[in-house]
C-alpha cells in the first residue's frame, strides 16, 4: 500500500466510508487480540508478558480480557 496514494485518496473520499473502515479494522483487531491473548494464556504466558507484547500495561490487558 502506497501511503501517499492512500492519503490522496482520503482527500476526495466519502468520510462515511473512511470512518467505517476505521471501525471495521478495530473490530477485526479486537477479535484477533481476543483469540491470541486467550491462546497465550493457555500456553502459560503471564499477563505481564502479554501486556509487553501488545504495548499496554499488564492491568489494562488483564482488565480487558481477563478473569
Amino acid at each position, binding site marked *: *500500500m502506497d501511503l501517499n*496514494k*492512500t492519503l490522496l*485518496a*482520503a482527500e476526495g*473520499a*466519502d468520510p*462515511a*466510508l*473512511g470512518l*467505517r*473502515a476505521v471501525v*471495521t*479494522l478495530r*473490530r*477485526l483487531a*479486537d*477479535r*484477533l487480540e*481476543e*483469540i491470541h491473548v486467550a491462546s497465550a494464556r493457555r500456553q502459560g504466558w503471564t499477563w505481564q508478558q502479554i501486556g509487553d507484547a501488545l504495548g499496554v500495561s499488564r492491568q489494562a490487558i488483564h482488565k*480487558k*480480557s481477563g478473569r
Partner: protein
Amino acid sequence: MFERFGKEARGIVTTAVAEAEARGDSRVGTEHLLIAVAGVSFPFQRSLLGPLDVGSEEIRRQLDRLDSESLAAVGVDLELFDPALRALDGAVPRHARRHLPFTHGAKAVLTDTLRETIKQGGRQIGTEHVLLALLSLPAADPLGRVFANMGADPQEIRTDIEEALRRAS
C-alpha cells in the same frame, strides 16, 4: 423513556442491544435497530417495504457488504483476512459489559419514534413507528448507504406506509 413503548417496540430495542453485543460492536447503532426491525411484523402489508422487505439475515449481509466496501475504499481487501476471523460474530464469548451505550443516531431514532407515534395519532409506540423513524434518518447515517445499496428510497417507502396507516385508521 420506554414507558410509551409497546411490547413489540420494546422487543426491537432489546434485540438491537443483543445484536450489537453479538457482533462485538461497542455501541448500539441505527444498523442494529434495522436488523431488529427486519425481524418483526407490522400493522400493514409487508410488501409496502419494497426492496426492504427482507429478513434480519439479509440486513446483516448488507452490513457486511458495507464493511467490505469501506475497507476497499481505504485499500484493504477484507477477503485477505482469514474467513474464520471475518465470520467470528458471537463465536468468541465476549467479556460481558454492563451496558452498551447507544450512538447519537440510535438515540435520535428512539426519540423520533415518539414523535412519529403522536403524528400518527397512536397512544403506544409500535413497530411501525420505529420503522418510520429509521426511514427518516439523514442521508449521512450509515443506513443511508445500506438503503441505497438495496435500491430502496426511504422517503418513498415512508410515504407509502403513512398512506396505508392513514387508510387503516
